[in-house]
């Protein structure tokens, strides 16, 4: 979550924007990220002025697999990773993503810009150090 917010803020800085209004991510069932918990963590942690009030949009990615032997693609149900035709193992082709898709930024008017706390708005120390 902190990694995501650091990346978002570093994008805001690259584009010299004042505020983040929307963050769009995609999350798969095998990502280890639970959408509901991600939303509540975002609401709690995104309290800095430049991200405060931003909307988090979560696109859910289906769990898809491909069977090489049968050259067939199918949706994995109940986490059964066997080809429905030959019963062999399959390759996951989508469903383990935790991707940042887009960030919406706003250029505020001068009045809002003046109201920002300079320390939270400062971009000099927000270079991405995600781990």
């Amino acid at each position: 979550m902190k990694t995501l917010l650091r990346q978002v803020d570093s994008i805001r800085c690259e584009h010299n924007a004042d505020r983040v209004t929307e963050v769009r991510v995609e999350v798969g069932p095998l990502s280890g990220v639970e959408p509901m918990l991600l939303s509540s963590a975002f609401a709690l942690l995104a309290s800095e002025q430049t991200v405060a009030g931003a909307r988090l949009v979560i696109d859910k990615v289906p769990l898809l697999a491909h069977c090489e032997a049968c050259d067939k693609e199918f949706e994995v149900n109940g986490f059964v990773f066997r080809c429905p035709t030959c019963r062999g193992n399959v390759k996951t082709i989508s469903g383990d993503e935790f991707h940042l898709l887009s960030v919406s930024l706003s250029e505020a008017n001068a009045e809002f810009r003046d109201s920002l706390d300079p320390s939270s708005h400062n971009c000099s120390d927000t270079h991405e150090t995600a781990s």
Partner: protein
Amino acid sequence: MTGTTKTITIRRDVTAKSKADAAVERARLARRGTLVVNLLSSPGSGKTTLLEATARRFASQHSMAVLVGDLETDRDARRLRPLVPTAQLTTGGACHLELPLVRRGLEALGDPQVDFLFIENVGNLVCPASHDLGEHLRVVLVSTTEGDDKPGKYPKMFRTSHAMIVTKLDLLPHVPFSVAAVTEDASRIQPDLDVMQVDALDGTGIEEWCEYLNEERAKRLAKYE
């Protein structure tokens, strides 16, 4: 507030950096001959007991080191230290290990050049599944006392593992656990899973497990030559 809004398209894996760091560590350790084994399970499944048995078996044949993760205490490290160089990683409440902590543990041991580096993860079948520690082999343990219905409940753990070890085989006559059922449940999620059975206290299955480790070491490290 009035102002203009623009949307920047990114399409980036949020975890790209930690994945890349793990890949670098995996290659570095492989090139010097170390197979990194990440051991995962519920608390009390027998990870430390398996490592004690492994250390005894490997004593004269292979060099090994252990990094052991827990929320608190160095109890596991104290058990293992008489047998093998061991560093305790204390997460201070975190439910899983991450690569920076593993690196710190390696440094504490003097970055030893060993044949096998075992990472005993925090006992938890959920979060550790999502963290690549630079391992070459991921092994999940299921003890007979936990019940044979566990794989389906924790699909990511079993999907991302290479092998499953059924432990506490000696208790099989006393508990409602079927090795065939747990194997079937796990292989639905990961059909390529290698399955072994051990009783680490009396040594049953330890020879097979150690042979497996040797074969995997040869096979997996060859990819980096």
